[in-house]
């Protein structure tokens, strides 16, 4: 290669100077700006891509419907990777350079926790989807959750096990991250309180690929229902291996194993005897806005939407309504969000409490025998 050191350095400097030039003429013009920091690279991009797409669709829909009182809405995205520190970088970059009226944060609790102090400084409302209860307990009045908290999901799974499946000897399998650890802890406490203590617990790492030790260990303890706290891919793999190993008891998974990205990995047989407690059932057959959303999402992006993405879509619609009603002033907007009661989104009914939790309903679903489609068993509402 003939490039000299000096030439290489000049190219390097030229390349790195570009974004600075760009930043200097950032448009402060008329569109109402919304910032979104979601994971678009790395292992979390599986879900991040859904948020990206859902928000893009929401932006288009809002603008088609006349925007925000005549002004258009523009969502600016930055990538958080799978890193807390990068999530804060992305947030601060947007806060400084784009100065949006509100934010969408990622659905990863640790990223939410890392961003929380910065958000407090910036004083702009933000929607987030991380489930961990500590995020809300942190007492940041600017944060609003668009999904059920993990403790709500865990509670729903316990109710499914106790009330629907009549569990006497429940077992728990969880992924070793904030979601799994928190969920397993809550579920164990709830079972204990109901007088049906957990008889076996197993854990697995985020990158594990073999669960035979955990599954066989739980079976040998004689469990009659297994609660699984999982992420999409590992959840699908657990369900598949449970079938290969011949586990017969009903399995109750958390939402992630039943998102389209996970379901496409499974066969109908893998889903036999599988129950799930999902944020919301994405079912176009109910018609109305749900059907419209599912069909348009599929036509636009070529994949099925998942409940997490839908939560972001609902959040964007809620945000648009707030912006239309009280304008882009952060304080007024925050107060408006805090006062939302009984706002009907496509996926959930939103009513914010003093901690910024807005969603308390879940759906218990089960796979239709011999198919890969899910049917609603019952919806539950918790408080």
């Amino acid at each position, binding site marked *: 290669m003939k490039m000299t050191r000096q030439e290489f350095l000049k190219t390097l400097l030229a390349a790195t100077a570009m974004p600075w030039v760009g930043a200097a003429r950032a448009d402060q013009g008329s569109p109402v700006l919304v910032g979104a920091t979601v994971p678009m*690279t790395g*292992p979390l991009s*599986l879900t*991040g891509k859904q948020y990206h797409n859902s928000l893009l669709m929401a932006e288009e829909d809002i603008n088609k419907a006349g925007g925000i009182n005549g002004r258009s809405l523009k969502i600016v995205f930055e990538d958080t990777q799978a890193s807390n520190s990068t999530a804060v970088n992305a947030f601060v970059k947007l806060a400084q350079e784009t100065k949006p009226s509100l934010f969408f944060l990622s659905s990863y609790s640790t990223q939410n926790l890392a961003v929380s102090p910065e958000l407090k400084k910036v004083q702009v409302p933000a929607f987030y989807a991380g489930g961990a209860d500590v995020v809300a307990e942190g007492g940041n009045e600017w944060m609003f959750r668009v999904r059920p908290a993990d403790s709500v999901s865990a509670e729903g799974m316990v109710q499914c096990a106790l009330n629907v499946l009549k569990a006497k000897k429940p077992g728990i399998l969880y992924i070793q991250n904030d979601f799994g650890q928190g969920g397993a802890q809550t579920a164990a406490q709830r079972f204990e309180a109901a007088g049906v203590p957990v008889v076996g617990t*197993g854990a*697995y790492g985020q990158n594990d*690929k073999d669960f035979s*030790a955990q599954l066989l260990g739980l079976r040998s303890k004689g469990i009659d229902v297994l609660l699984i706290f999982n992420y999409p891919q590992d959840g699908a793999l657990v369900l598949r291996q449970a079938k290969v190993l011949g586990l017969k008891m009903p399995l109750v998974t958390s939402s992630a194993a039943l998102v389209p990205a996970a379901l496409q990995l499974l066969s109908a047989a893998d889903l036999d005897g599988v129950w799930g407690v999902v944020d919301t059932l994405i079912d176009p057959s109910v018609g109305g806005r749900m059907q419209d959303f599912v069909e348009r999402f599929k036509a636009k992006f070529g994949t099925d939407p998942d409940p997490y993405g839908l939560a972001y879509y609902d959040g964007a619609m809620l945000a648009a309504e707030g912006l239309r009603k009280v304008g882009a002033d952060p304080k007024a907007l925050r107060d408006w969000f805090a006062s939302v009661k009984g706002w009907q989104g496509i996926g959930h009914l939103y009513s914010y409490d003093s901690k910024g939790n807005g969603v308390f309903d879940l759906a218990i679903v089960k796979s239709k025998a011999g198919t890969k489609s899910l049917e609603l068993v019952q919806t539950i509402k918790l408080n």
Partner: protein
Amino acid sequence: MTDLIQLLINGLAIGSVYALAAIGFVIVYSATGVVNFAAGQFVMFGTFAGVAMLLNAQLPWPVGYGAALLAMALFGALFFAVLYLPLRASPVVTIIIGTVAIGITMQNAALLAFGSWPFRLPSPLEGVNLTVAGATISAHAVAAVIVTALMVALLWLLFFRTSLGIGMRAVAQDIKAARLMGLKVNRLLALSWILAALLAGVAGLMLGPMWFADTSMGDPIALKAFAATIIGGFGSLPGAIVGGLFVGLSEVLGASYVSSAYKDLISFGIMILFLLVRPQGVFGERVQDRG
């Protein structure tokens, strides 16, 4: 008892994938002295070469596998030209960082090309399960173990029964002497990278149907392959196999009998213990020889 047999079988199946990844790593290390931190991404590329040929291009099995391996061989050659040749005179750590940098590029290039949804790579043995003493195992996992054994046998033949392989070993032992003996050193070094890429390709094609394929699967595999290499012995082919199987078994048995939360601590603990007590591993070189 049935459960124990089941665990052993599963441990061996995972272990054989680690072993294949470790072999690819060991070949590069013994031939070029490079600790390849992109080894896991090589395996990921192998799986996605399979995804591209079998799922996207819908090629029939033998053609698809052949095309995927051909793509991997080309990639090995490219890697040699883009990374190893320009950096071969640099200090070891510079090359290590180089492999890390290119690993980041590989992972993100795959993300751009294939998206973030995981894939289920099909297998010719899809859905076939065998029952051994009450334990169930998928036929594909058995095939993975057999393929691993076959690869090792072929490598042994190459290295000890062909002049090409003997030349590669000569380069690995003493590059200057090999050059003086009139061996085409660069060609043999390139061949080592191609061989490593091919083995990673086989590993990728084997594990694709057992696990699911996604673009961030590389690093965790590399980590286990490193542990396997240390335990088996750096630069030793039989060591890579023993190490791989050992790590696979220790994970599964550790999760079952000790603690599922801390099972990875067991394999890495054993790795560190090996380093302290027997750094040359089970079959490895004497530490003083390399540094």
